[in-house]
């Protein structure tokens, strides 16, 4: 098993600074956040330009080139509801450090993202949901199978489909957490890669509590077999937990300085 893949989530148009930077094509705030995340240990960076209906194609190209030119072709997850923008981004994407990730497909309206990933030899994040939150793991698994079939029919390798079990907020869905972890285990037992938006679990909790809960969840999810997550790598507790779990799982060889790498 390889090292856990951290996808840095902090270049997101929901942040006012980033939204402004994207609107005015101001590289500085974006490069600053990219550097912080890479220094903290992110492998992939998520580039979320939002719905970007108007100038999505041009914006995504600009963002991809900006990040890859400044950070040695850093691999990226292209994140938007505008499919044309994702294709435009991939058209200028350099694959030397890793395939692009299409973020994201589901088994419902967004199933076409799988076709898009297949046509562009990309990785796809495949949310195991259709409309709303799956009621149980049988439902999750049926969506997973649907999407897998779709990918296979389009000639994708299973390893390029990273299934997202759908991390759920604890405040409100506390009773669903263990089942979600069991689903990760099912994915892992079948040899699939997995990922997801981890910080969702601590949504709405007090600020000082969130990193603790996030770290506990990532440790339990890694034990269940999660291979990647979309998260904030600048959360030191989180990264220390991931690195420690990688050591315990024998994903990465121990050395005294492992936390510094």
């Amino acid at each position: 098993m390889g090292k856990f893949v951290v996808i840095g989530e902090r270049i997101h148009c929901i942040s006012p600074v980033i939204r402004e930077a994207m609107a005015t094509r101001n590289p500085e705030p974006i490069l600053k956040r990219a550097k912080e995340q890479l220094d903290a240990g992110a492998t992939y960076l998520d580039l979320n330009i939002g719905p970007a209906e108007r100038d999505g194609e041009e914006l995504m190209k600009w963002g991809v080139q900006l990040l890859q030119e400044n950070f040695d072709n850093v691999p990226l997850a292209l994140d938007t509801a505008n499919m044309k923008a994702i294709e435009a981004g991939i058209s200028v994407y350099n694959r030397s450090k890793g395939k692009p990730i299409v973020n994201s497909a589901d088994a419902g309206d967004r199933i076409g993202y799988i076709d898009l990933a297949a046509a562009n030899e990309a990785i796809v994040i495949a949310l195991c949901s259709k409309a709303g939150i799956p009621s149980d793991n049988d439902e999750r698994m049926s969506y997973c199978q649907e999407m897998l079939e779709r990918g296979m029919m389009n000639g994708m390798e299973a390893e390029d489909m990273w299934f997202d079990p759908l991390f759920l907020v604890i405040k409100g869905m506390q009773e669903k957490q263990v089942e979600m972890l069991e689903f990760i285990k099912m994915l892992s037992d079948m040899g699939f890669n997995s990922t997801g938006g981890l910080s969702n679990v601590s949504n709405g909790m007090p600020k000082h509590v969130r990193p603790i809960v996030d770290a506990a969840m990532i440790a339990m999810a890694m034990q269940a077999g999660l291979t990647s997550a979309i998260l904030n790598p600048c959360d030191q507790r989180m990264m220390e937990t991931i690195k420690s779990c990688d050591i315990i799982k024998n994903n990465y060889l121990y050395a005294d300085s492992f936390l510094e790498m």
Partner: protein
Amino acid sequence: MAFKRNPQKFPGATKTVVIGTGDRAVTLGGENVMPLYSFDAPIENRPKVGVEISDSGYDKNVPGIAAYYAGAETIADIAKKAAAMPGADFIAISLEGADPNGENKSVDECVELCKAVGEAVDLPIVVLGCKNHDKDAKLFEKISDALQGKNILVMSASEENYKTVSASAGLAYSQKIGAESAVDINLAKQLNVLISQMGVAADNVVMNVGSAAAGYGFEYVASTMDRVKAAALAQNDNMLQNPIVTPVSDDAWSVKESIVSEADFPEWGPTEKRGVAMEITTAAACLASGSNAVILRHPESVAAIAKFIGELM
């Protein structure tokens, strides 16, 4: 049904390190296959063979060595003969006489010896210390200074002296350095991390992950090297991708099998033959486990291992 070749592919590869200069410069590492698996993908830089010479002259008690170096009076003469040995890719000068617990030769004296070797041969030069960490740090600093531009390799930086060796040989004089650990995979990695944190670029560092004569705990050496290669190739661990250089001769020629006389053990046969066999066996095992270069002493061992490598590539 026809046989379908299914080569193992890895995300990682070992790094390349160049020692020496000009036509005779040697490139170590660069492979992205398991040791000697040239059938999985071409190994561009075949494993290399170094010939060990010593500040104390050649071993007159081993007839093959004595005959080969006969007539060589100075270290320069010895180095020239060593360089002319068929199969030699580089020269490794051992400074065992510098050990404070032994002859305690001065740093200046050792610098002169190394300069003489540097002037005598155009092969890359590896400097093997005296195994005293403090003295080695002093030796490597002065020798690296004196041999600037020769792109030598000093072996080795250890947990005890890596700061000094990195700062002097590695950074101030742009020589290559070896990172030495004693059959301890975690320390091997840690030392590479520490040296890289000193600012020495990875393509200036090789590893000596330790060795042992065949039959003397070699299984630990093999499993350590296996684990190094697995991490370097399969896990793409960039802190273990440096090429491995293994000094074999010292271990091989100090075990009982290579030393006791035929008079004491008539059933074992001639002493020299046993030593050569031990050196060849250990070196071949190191190469099969992942060494990118071995350092040997006896001309027959050098010839045999060079042939072994040649036939497998």
